[in-house]
């Protein structure tokens, strides 16, 4: 009874230095606490890679090269964001790479074959992309199968459908050029335009990338939905037991990946005017790698949206940096693998050191 007699008497604890402590935890030094955060680790990694290429590849120091690197990073980064959120939510999406192409093919073929305004194709592609996400999520929730299996299935299905349907409709492995169709310029302005900053040509995807990253960060840390993402990834049973709508959260995360695939697909379509139906295979692993390098826990429950931004930047940097350094671009993948392992090991070591109790 004394338990609840107390609250009426005690005044709310004064925040700040006078706060009562249980005296068992010592405050860690700020530097150590920062280092324990994975996104700080990947930030330092990205800076290291940047410095490395600034030294070894002089052309990188040029402003336009930097814009190019950022553009390369943004195409990976825009997809890495929803993939990272999904990973924090405890799932994978192996179909993310080909889903981008599916979306671009849909938009291109719908508008070209039916000779309609490209916006019709764009909207239909959005519906299809969200539908693929919905299917992935729904299958996962209903069957309880691991997302690896479900999305591996979708990955193979989409890969086959992309090729087969494109050949069936256009008689070719690529779609027809849509650059002279109604609404093309408008759509290009939205998805694939560029603008000048101090004489440097910057692609609009860089802006979208950063805008999406800011929104994702805000959603993750400041909204209910963000709380739910961490919860379903951290402990799905517990989350359900305290009333978190697990089914909704998971399905909507897959649909968010669908949205990302749609956006990147539209960018590809409107910057190249035509789509190769066999592309996109292997990209899903790049997205996942960017999220993991960015400090997202592969098993879910931890991570950030800002980490994958730096992760994607590292990828873009290496991809372009190798070219600027004049090396054989065949080394790119090998370099990526080393970077991935290195980043993961450093993250592990840093977080172990910094959180040692």
């Amino acid at each position, binding site marked *: *009874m004394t*338990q*609840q007699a*107390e*609250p009426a008497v*005690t005044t*709310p*604890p004064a925040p700040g230095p006078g706060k*009562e*402590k*249980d005296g*068992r*935890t010592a405050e860690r030094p700020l530097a150590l606490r920062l280092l324990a955060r994975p996104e700080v680790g990947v930030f330092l990694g990205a800076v290291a890679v940047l410095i490395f290429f600034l030294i070894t590849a002089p052309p990188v120091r040029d402003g336009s090269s930097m814009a190019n690197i950022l553009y390369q990073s943004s195409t990976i980064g825009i997809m890495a964001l929803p993939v990272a959120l999904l990973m924090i939510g405890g799932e994978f999406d192996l179909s993310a790479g080909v889903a981008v192409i599916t979306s671009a093919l849909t938009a291109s073929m719908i508008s070209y074959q039916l000779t309609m305004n490209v916006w019709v194709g764009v909207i239909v592609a959005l519906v299809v992309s969200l539908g693929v996400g919905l299917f992935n999520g729904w299958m996962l929730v209903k069957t309880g199968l691991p997302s690896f299996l479900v999305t591996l299935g979708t990955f193979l299905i989409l890969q086959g459908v992309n090729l087969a349907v494109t050949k069936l409709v256009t008689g070719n492995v690529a779609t027809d050029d849509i650059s002279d169709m109604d609404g093309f310029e408008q759509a290009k302005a939205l998805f694939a335009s560029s603008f000048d900053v101090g004489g440097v040509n910057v692609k609009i995807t860089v802006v979208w990338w950063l805008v999406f990253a800011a929104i994702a960060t*805000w959603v993750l840390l*400041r*909204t*209910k939905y*963000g*709380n739910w993402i*961490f*919860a379903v990834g*951290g*402990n799905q*049973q*517990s*989350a*359900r*037991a*305290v*009333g*978190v*709508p697990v089914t909704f959260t998971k399905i909507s995360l897959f649909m968010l990946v669908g949205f990302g695939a749609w956006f990147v697909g539209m960018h590809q379509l409107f910057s190249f005017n035509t789509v190769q139906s066999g592309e996109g295979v292997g990209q899903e692993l790049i997205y996942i790698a960017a999220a993991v390098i960015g400090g997202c*826990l592969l098993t879910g*429950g*931890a991570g950030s949206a800002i980490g994958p931004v730096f992760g994607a930047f590292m990828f873009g940097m290496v991809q372009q940096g190798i070219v600027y350094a004049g090396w054989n671009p065949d080394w790119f993948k090998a370099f990526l693998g080393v970077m991935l392992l290195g980043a993961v090991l450093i993250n592990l070591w840093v977080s172990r050191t910094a959180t040692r*109790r």
Partner: protein
Amino acid sequence: MTSTNETGTHGAVVADKAPEKDAPIVELRGAGKSYGNIRALHGVDLKVFPSQVTCVLGDNGAGKSTLIKIISGLHQHTEGEFLVDNAPVRFTTPREALDKGIATVYQDLAVVPLMPVWRNFFLGSEMTKGPWPIRRLDIEKMKKTADQELRNMGIVLDDLEQPIGTLSGGQRQCVAIARAVYFGARVLILDEPTAALGVKQSGVVLKYIAAARDRGLGVIFITHNPHHAYMVGDHFSVLRLGTMELNASRDEVSLEELTNHMAGGTELAALKHELAQVRGVDVEELPEAGDLTAPVVTAPEGKS
């Protein structure tokens, strides 16, 4: 989802609700549950009154977990009736049970280990502010409330940002209880809260059970430790192989009898005579069937 603006007042709602003392909040009448052809629970009667601790005891596999899963909405009963406030209900999600004021503190505590203490405290019932497109978590208020509620429970934490996984078992248990009490629980189901705890921490948890009872909550205390049950319990139900073996209030049963029932009860008494024949088995301490005076539920069937 309940809008989170309401959740802030939930705590207050409990306080001014004056429950009728003689009406059970939750009642099971001959309830049972079968998983396919396995009958996990059968013919269970249970009443939970406000300001009372109802202890459900039973060995492993007795059906304790199935019982709480029915009441908390994780599973549905397949026979009998389940009433809340005298109205038959059938929960399909834990959320429905929560909305009726039935909160469960699970064995694994239903916490997400990697998330900060305050986020765990409000998980599923977050406080928000602002209009829709920019509706956001009211972090400051949530932290302050969580801190206040935990202090009321006697838990002082330096840093509510620390992951809840870094707390000790007893602390986590108390956070979970504090959370349930704060969110307007009328019935608190505790699934073996003392099972994994040391002596001292068990004492702390028992103290909170008593505190919750004194606040007017009906508590269902699931345990296999009759000593812990007898310290706080008002009513005792012993489950055995999915059926109710004993259903008695505190004045009808002694700790010794309770222990005996837990240990096998009437069957042991019958066994005593057989064991008496065997040399080297000391049967002096075992109870006679006549000693067990507490009202034993005589199920017409099911006792195997």
